[in-house]
């Protein structure tokens, strides 16, 4: 704790200084120079190059053939050419893999290419995605398994829970939903619609109620009705607010208290999210012991490559992916399919 004080002191002093300097430099306002609205910076968004055409960078031809067919025919061996390297880098960056993971892939490729460029990239990416993806459905004897869903706003937590509830019900389980998002207006209504559709039980409270108490009540209901599993929703929260993360910590504690047992904490991530997903994962891992990721909205043009960085750096595996609106569009994550779609043109 030695350095803590110094940091605190610096923060305080720096804040004061900022405010003071600002108040000091207030002078009569000069109108900002009015520049003409800049033209569109980019006329044409470049199409993703394909991995086996070194000149794709220059020609930017969108290819119509399936890249996977061509991958199988690839026979590039030995060292990577400068152009090939650029193409690989571009493909990976455009998939939101991030700068450091992209560099890690390139470093591996620099050690020699044996399976063709695309094949080698595929191999390296699959190597990064090597965690166990099993989901726990059973708690210790006498306890009720709880799946807790966490994430930032607007990633599709409530929808994901609705779809998973349907899956569980279809597999013959008795499901209780806990509408723990007591913050967003009408979030509980949204979950209630899903509960009705899936014929699952739901426990809800009024808006602004304590989320912990909702989950507590849900566990009570689950115990009384001998439910097989509780799926607990939480309010979307940004990952850089200590108070909200503390609240989440508490919610998890409540859910994990006898008779409940949190067997999965699933972080719901939106595939369109960029590098911020990594810090989201880091914060939620620290606050709620995340055991897996649900990657939603993969049916758009976004690739969701940031999950590779998350699995590589934080060891959190993706367990489910959402590829559409329908219930059956929420699927178990298959690394091979995911990598193929990352590399597809």
């Amino acid at each position, binding site marked *: *704790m*030695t*350095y*803590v*004080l*110094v*940091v*605190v*002191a*610096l*923060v305080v*002093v*720096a*804040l004061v*200084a*900022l*405010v*003071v*300097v*600002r*108040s*000091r*430099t*207030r*002078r009569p306002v000069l109108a900002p120079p009015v*520049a003409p*609205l*800049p033209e*569109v*910076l*980019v006329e044409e*968004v*470049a199409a993703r190059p394909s991995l086996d055409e070194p000149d794709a960078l220059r020609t930017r031809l969108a290819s119509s053939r399936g890249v996977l067919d061509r991958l199988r025919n690839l026979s590039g061996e030995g060292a990577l050419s400068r152009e090939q390297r650029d193409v690989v880098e571009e493909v990976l*960056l*455009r998939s*939101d893999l*991030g700068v450091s993971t992209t560099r890690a892939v390139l470093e591996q490729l620099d050690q020699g290419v044996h399976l063709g460029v695309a094949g080698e990239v595929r191999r390296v990416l699959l190597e990064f995605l090597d965690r166990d993806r099993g989901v726990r459905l059973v708690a210790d004897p006498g306890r009720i398994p709880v799946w807790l869903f966490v994430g*930032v*706003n*607007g990633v599709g937590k409530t929808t994901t829970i609705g779809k998973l509830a349907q899956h569980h019900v279809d597999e013959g389980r008795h499901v209780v939903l806990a509408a723990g998002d007591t913050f967003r*207006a*009408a979030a509980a*209504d*949204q979950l209630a*619609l899903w509960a009705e559709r899936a014929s699952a039980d739901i426990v809800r409270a009024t808006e602004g109620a304590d989320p912990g108490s909702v989950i507590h009540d849900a566990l009570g209901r689950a115990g009384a009705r001998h439910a097989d599993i509780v799926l607990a929703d939480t309010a979307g929260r*940004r990952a*850089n*607010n*200590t108070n909200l993360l503390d609240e989440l910590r508490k919610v998890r504690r409540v859910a994990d208290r006898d008779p409940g047992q949190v067997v999965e904490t699933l972080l719901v991530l939106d*595939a*369109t*999210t*960029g*590098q*911020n997903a*990594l810090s989201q994962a880091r914060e939620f891992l620290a606050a709620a012991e995340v055991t897996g990721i649900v990657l939603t*909205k993969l*049916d*758009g*043009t976004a690739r969701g490559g940031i999950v590779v960085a998350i699995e590589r750096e934080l060891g959190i595996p993706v367990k489910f992916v959402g590829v559409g609106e329908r219930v059956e569009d929420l699927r178990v994550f298959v690394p091979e399919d995911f990598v193929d779609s990352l590399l597809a043109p």
Partner: protein
Amino acid sequence: MFDALSDRLERLSASLRSRGRLSPGDIDAALEEVRTALLEADVELTVVRAFLDAVRTRLVGASLATSLTPGQQVIKAVHEQLIEVLGATPLKVTYASRPPTVVLLAGLQGAGKTTAAAALAQWFKAQGRQPYLVAADLQRPAAVEQLRVLGDSIGVDVYSEPSDPVSVAREGVERARRLGRDVVIVDTAGRLAVDAPLMAEVRAISDATSPHYTFLVIDAVTGQDAVHTARAFHDSLSLSGLIVTKLDYDARGGAVLSARGVVGRPVVFASTGEKVGDFELFHPDRIASRILGMGDALSLIERAEATMDADVVANSASRLMSGQFTLEDFLAQLNQVRKMGSFGGLMKLMPGVTKEMRNAASNVDDRELNKIEAIIQSMTPRERRDPAVLDGSRRTRIAAGSGTSVNAVNQLLKQFGEMKKMMRQMAGGGMPNLPGKLGRAAQMAARADRSREVPAGFEALGAGLRAGSPAPSPSGKNKKKKGGRVTPPKQR
């Protein structure tokens, strides 16, 4: 993972500094760092390339007659270019001569359209208009309900009915006209850009209502995909501007630049929180600093003003300057700062902070802060005012009372003594003794936004400080010393 661009360029600058003028090789090396910074901020690759070309042009043409180091020259060029691209001329909202003015909101699922719709209504209300909300999002379960609840909370009527989105929108605008409302905001269903039927639907709504403004609501955490989204919506709706949401996340927000880069429309509003009130006109300079990782002094100050109790701060700060800073003041300050969020997050916003300090700050555990609080609260008021009275037995009592060890109490007291000394030095030397960059950034921030008033408490504080000795040159010695103390978390 996110290194500030300034850090990166500093590493480069050993080779750059020796020469006054940037050679083509220097520019290449510097631009490579800029490229990484932009990519880490989620700026789309094509946009990055176009952007770097523009910066290169600026740099090659730049004269050497400045006092800036080459590294600073690069940052300045990038910063200026960012601001220019992000919208030197903000969109001025004008109203239709024949009301109502129709505003259409479109965007992907989860971008925050519904909240933005309510926030926008609130904003128009604050401008003295009578807004009317139309919930044409009939896709997401309970979306209409959400808008109704939000509408209630801000006192704006919401129209919807379970028919089809196009007729809801048309009827909504018609009703607004009959009711004499002058602004209608139409919330549409979230959709995926590739989804042709839904895209056709929003197009039909647009045709039916002929909106005066069509805003794309885009999420600041979006990655490389932002360009596709923006382009798809622009192609079918011809956007008039962008609304950025979730700027309160610690994302760099490069998506804003990506979207801006492909549609050429300005970012008009930004939402910085989930509450309807966290919504304001967009400031390009702020996001420019963020994208570069230069810290966001303005946001920091605003957050400070919003959450800190100005009286408490001013009070203990003036005592701090006069050397009478007590543990009680320290506790008050600590609580004020903790209200603002995590230390790591704050440090990220703070400009001119070294990487070591940032790391140290993000390692600060809440529990350790709790411990400090417990120790101080276990002291009597007299002990807090005058730690000198703390003998062995008192320390043992405090340790027991706070559930810590005597060792921890000793450490805290020792650190507090050092901190006091440091602050006294700073007070004696006046504020400019702070790291030079920090002061400069604050000045930049000040220049960028002079219109807002500083609360009385802070003003008084400023006056008190001005009375101290004025403006010595930034002292590198002081800065170094502080950095050195922070880095090694030696004894634990």
